[in-house]
């Protein structure tokens, strides 16, 4: 059974539809109509993955809107009986909106099967034709669920903190179904797309075109041709050690090209419509230490984690900073999968980050002298590249194959 859905198909649809959507979007100056065009297009494009997803996300964002309006608005805050309930509701809604993602991460394909069957059944209440078409689509994971969850949580937390107030339904749906980032790309914040009254901007449009083209070249030329060469081998012990290492180091490059390529397409597609969303990558392969690496890899996730985990956990206080680092890295790690291997991945990167922070502080206090070789930029880049590469199998190899793989990498088990 096909559980895979290639994000390529979504982005290809988005770009093929972009001329129509651009005409629709810029043919009116009314932000409300623009939001409507964009939201409807987001739903339309998602329906080609599976109509059940449209229904699910519609219900999801309606709930987000309900929580946003009913509990956290300024008027709500002034009512004493509601004020006491705000904290409870904030916590409850965070759990509620994170629940589908958590269930998916815990139960994996079991959740996907039930999600698909129930989603399809619900769809039959609205349209039998869509219900039938939905059955013909793949049994896929709820695509874009993690990105959606983070966006929704961000909105709820910001509403709770009073940073965002009184959004209308169409504004929340526009944020939820914003087509360039529905399935892949940076995790946007509401502020990134809050204004829809801009005029078309030639410079931004051309910039968008270039980013989209560059992104496609990264994904479909560089990464696509690299993949068969760097894919993790099924029988690692059969390969020479140096080949295994070459493949592992290559896999990191492939991963960067693929992920950042899709992010480029998402950033570029947003720019076509006049939105400048945040970048997701900043040359992570070129960074000289692990801290800079995490500040430049999947930046929208690390920024999200910094705002919502690192800072609340006391990252800026000396006595709690290391705990905050571990908590943040654990969230990032378990975002991939809720598995022991990802837990180890979190510990590993948390350890690296904490170690680097400790060394940096110790170095800052020490007298200046000759820079040792291992602290020179080239060595730092090489070490960071290596440190990141060796952790990738923890995420991308099935757990049962991890030990044989690492053993083969060290030349053992042959």
């Amino acid at each position, binding site marked *: 059974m096909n559980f895979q859905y290639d994000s390529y198909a979504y982005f290809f649809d988005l770009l093929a539809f972009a001329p129509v959507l651009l005409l629709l979007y810029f043919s009116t100056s009314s932000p409300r109509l623009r939001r409507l065009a964009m939201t409807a297009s987001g739903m339309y494009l998602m329906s080609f993955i599976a109509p059940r997803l449209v229904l699910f996300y519609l219900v999801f964002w309606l709930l987000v809107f309900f929580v946003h309006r009913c509990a956290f608005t300024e008027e709500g805050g002034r009512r004493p009986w509601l004020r006491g309930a705000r904290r409870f509701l904030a916590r409850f809604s965070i759990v509620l909106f994170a629940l589908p993602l958590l269930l998916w991460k815990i139960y*994996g394909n079991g959740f996907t099967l039930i999600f698909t069957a129930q989603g399809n059944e619900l769809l039959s209440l609205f349209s039998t034709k869509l219900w039938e078409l939905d059955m*013909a689509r793949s049994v896929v994971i709820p695509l874009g669920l993690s990105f959606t969850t983070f966006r929704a949580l961000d909105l709820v937390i910001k509403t709770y903190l009073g940073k965002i107030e009184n959004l209308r339904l169409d504004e929340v749906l526009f944020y939820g179904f914003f087509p360039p980032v529905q399935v892949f790309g940076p995790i946007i914040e509401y502020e990134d797309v809050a204004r829809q009254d801009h005029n078309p901007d030639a410079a931004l449009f051309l910039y968008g075109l270039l980013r989209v083209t560059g992104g496609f070249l990264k994904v479909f030329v560089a990464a696509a*041709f690299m993949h068969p060469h760097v894919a993790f081998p099924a029988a690692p012990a059969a390969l020479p050690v140096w080949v295994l290492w070459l493949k592992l180091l290559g896999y990191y490059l492939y991963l960067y090209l693929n992920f950042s390529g899709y992010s480029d397409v998402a950033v570029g597609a947003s720019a076509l419509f006049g939105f400048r969303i945040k970048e997701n990558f900043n040359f992570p392969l070129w960074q000289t230490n692990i801290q800079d690496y995490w500040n430049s890899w999947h930046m929208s996730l690390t920024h999200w984690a910094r705002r919502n985990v690192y800072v609340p956990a006391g990252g800026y206080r000396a006595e709690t900073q290391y705990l905050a680092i571990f908590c943040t890295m654990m969230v990032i790690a378990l975002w991939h999968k809720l598995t022991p291997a990802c837990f180890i991945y979190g510990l590993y990167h948390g350890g690296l980050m904490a170690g680097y922070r400790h060394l940096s502080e110790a170095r800052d206090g020490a007298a200046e002298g000759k820079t040792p070789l291992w602290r020179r930029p080239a060595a730092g880049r090489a070490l960071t590249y290596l440190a990141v590469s060796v952790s990738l199998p923890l995420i991308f190899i099935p757990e049962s194959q991890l030990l044989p793989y690492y053993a083969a990498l060290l030349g053992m088990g042959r």
Partner: protein
Amino acid sequence: MKDGKPKLPFGYEAGWQGVARACLWCLFFLVVAGGLAPHPAEEIPFTKAAAGTPVVPMVTIADDHRLIREDVKRDPEKLDILWISDSSGVLIAADKDFVTAGEDDTRILPAFVARDLQDRYGLKNFTIHFYAQLGMHPVDKLIFTLEALRRKPDLIVMPINPFYDFSHYKVMGQNAPLQLAPRAFADRPALWPLGLAIVSPSNGLLTLAGDRLRVICEAGPIKREVERNLLSRFSLLTHGNAGEEAKFDSPLNNVGFWIAYELLGGDVSRITGRDGKPSQQMLNQRVMESGSPLLRHSLATESTRRVMDYLRQSGIPALLYTMPLGDPYYLSPSSANALGNIRDYLRAENRAHEKGTLRLIPEIPANIRRTITFRPGDNTHITEPGAFDDYLARQIWQEIGKYRLQKTEEK
């Protein structure tokens, strides 16, 4: 980006003219790249099975967006039979399945029929254009039928699938035929809502681009070709690869999933054989038991009805035969009943349109059916056609005679 302004390469200051220029350059490079890229030959399944017969396979492999061979033109001097087929027209060796079978293990029903038409009925000057796709479902059949009508053949032959042509479990299969849909649906407003729901923007773009943007339309085959060259040069790096990424080990295919969840409350044991794989016969019988065939308002039934309507309206002679099935289907009361309903429905259709050019074969006679060898445990797909090919050849011959299609013979 700096000061809210995006940074363009080489300090370029963009205006709308610049945007237009950039778009034109993109288009230019796409066209040039299309010219420079290798031009891989279309991979046409069943070519070997059709060798030495007047059968011409027309459909490429599923992920080739060219989909239908445009190089094959109709010969006005020859009788043109266009045969649309799902897996029921493909005969796989008993020890293989549709995934593992190679060209040597595969035969096709039209090749048997073509030989019968030549040897027993003396028909010589004819071609059978074979439009086959494994897993062709009602909406796909509708699209292929409209494509067939565009080519204006002398006779159209197509099987009716009693399980899925009238039920909701799988209204469409592969993505590739959708590329034909915009062209096929364009002058039929009644199909536009369906088109809007199934034809994705990229399907539309590929249709529009056609041969003009070869690098996009042939991206799949071009990539395979380049990859093949690259892989052979770096074989050490690809040695020992797992090939495909690990997939969830489920005994179900898509149809099996829906049947398991809709009819069996998730109990897959009632549709899987001893080997843990879904049994085609069990799946089909569950579909029959569900009573869903002939679901009047289903998209599948509507598509099948439209196929018949468009064929009738075209005036092109057409023969639609119900695919033969093994005895176990007739021994089970529920499936025998469902098959009976379909038979009665098709008979009623024949009676209602007696003077039309479409003839339906509601059921293959039992004496013919029993000569057929079906795949063991499957009873749906054929391994040896027995007298079935001769039966079909006779029906086709009758149609040819009825419409005096042998005009080219008489010349």
